[in-house]
């Protein structure tokens, strides 16, 4: 089994009455030298790394390479019982921010799809797993679903900030998580793709402007935003609201927007927040 677009994926799922996660597992068996057991084992390993990263940020004092971030996950987590966002979103954003702290302190993470957006999926996944008592097996299914969305974006557009801005990195992570949450909560493959479209569309046009060229600020907050956006997008879709533009076209739109972004706004730290007076002052003496 193989597919190159969301349209092909959807017709496979609908013809065979299978969820996106199953289609992605079958595709991986087709294109790799791994059998089902090996694939699932490697997915479990990746999920363990994600869980461990979330836990480290809440239990250790992490210092980032550039010193722009550190300790934020704990602060947000401490407010979870009186949170303005409710416990699920509060946990998701705290965990997402924590993984970025682990990443910037040279800790172990899973680039999903990139290191700069590595907080979104663990944030959403751990929060929803805890709040809904999902098993690890269910979460691995969700990870396969997320992988299908990330694959389609990587194949037909880009997930690189240098090429497409933050909308490509955090946008992709958010779309992946939105689709995964949709499947976890009983959504159809079509709804998963609609949730992914909604998530990507909500972040369309977001530039990549890392202060000091570091994967710290505003990356950490944008991972929190990507996590909450995934939950919002899944919620909108599960309420029965359809997305106007199919996923393949949304991905194409994101790619075209990315290509039309000036060089200064694609990871070069020459524009956006990175070029502000305060950001430049803050970065003096870091290197």
């Amino acid at each position, binding site marked *: 089994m193989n597919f190159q677009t969301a349209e092909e994926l959807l017709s496979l799922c609908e013809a065979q009455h299978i969820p996106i996660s199953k289609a992605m597992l079958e595709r991986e068996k087709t294109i790799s030298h791994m059998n089902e057991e090996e694939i699932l084992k490697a997915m479990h390993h*990746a999920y363990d790394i994600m869980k461990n990263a979330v836990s480290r940020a809440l239990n250790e004092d992490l210092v980032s390479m550039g010193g722009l971030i550190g300790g934020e996950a704990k602060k947000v987590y401490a407010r979870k019982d009186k949170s303005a966002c409710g416990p699920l979103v509060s946990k998701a954003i705290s965990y997402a921010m924590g993984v970025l702290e682990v990443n910037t302190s040279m800790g172990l993470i899973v680039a999903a799809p990139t290191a700069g957006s590595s907080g979104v999926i663990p944030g959403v996944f751990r929060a929803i797993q805890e709040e809904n008592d999902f098993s690890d097996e269910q979460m691995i299914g969700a990870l396969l679903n997320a992988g299908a969305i990330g694959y389609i974006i990587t194949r037909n557009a880009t997930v690189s900030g240098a090429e497409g801005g933050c909308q490509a990195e955090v946008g992709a992570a958010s779309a992946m998580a939105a689709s995964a949450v949709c499947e976890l909560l009983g959504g159809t493959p079509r709804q998963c793709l609609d949730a992914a479209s909604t998530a990507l569309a909500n972040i369309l046009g977001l530039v990549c402007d890392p202060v000091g060229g570091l994967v710290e600020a505003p990356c950490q907050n944008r991972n929190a935003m990507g996590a909450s956006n995934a939950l919002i997008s899944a919620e909108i879709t599960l309420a029965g609201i359809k997305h106007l533009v199919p996923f393949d076209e949304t991905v194409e739109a994101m790619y075209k927007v990315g290509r039309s972004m000036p060089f200064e706004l694609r990871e070069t730290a020459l524009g956006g927040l990175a070029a502000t007076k305060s950001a430049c002052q803050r970065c003096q003496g870091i290197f």
Partner: protein
Amino acid sequence: MKEISIFDVIGPNMIGPSSSHTAGAVRIALLVRKLIQGEIREVKFILYGSFAQTYKGHGTDKALVAGILGMDTEDERIKDAFTYAKEAGLCYTFEPNTIKHTDHPNTVEVIVVDDKGETTSVVGASIGGGNVRIDQINGVDVEFTGEYCTMIIKQQDTPGVVAYITSSLSEYNINIAFMRLYREDKGAFAFTIIETDEHIDERVQDKIREHASILSVRII
């Protein structure tokens, strides 16, 4: 084109903060280590483009040393690579070069001296998402990524050597995915780089080494 795996999307599993500046740097240096037969005693890294500008903030320096020490992208010791280098007796230096333009913005030249005093120079580029490409060995332009099982053969540029290599592989029933020959000047030394789907075992390497014009065989 190689199909995109789910582990390219949910992955790589890596030490942060940057797939191109940290994980890619580990991979380039690890490929260099695998290329060298002897033990590496000294290493100098010449950093170009974005590597030269931001290597400290992304831990590129620690990542490069870690790769030379044999660590992979998942190794949590990368953060303390300088301490491990000291313990291993490895001398390392960094030289940022912001003047010379390279094809890819994230490029590094790795110059190593092994325990026999032999110097090898390798140029590699980190091409995004933790993927890398080796562009040059000892001044000879080459191209391989390390994604496949890769055999690097250094040979005297004489007639019949390539035929000998391919017949040896076919004798052991190994299917070649890609094969390229690179040389600097006619009659001087050349590199044959073979990428295969299957693992190439010791017996094949030994068989290839038997030929008088083969100078070295490395599997990475």
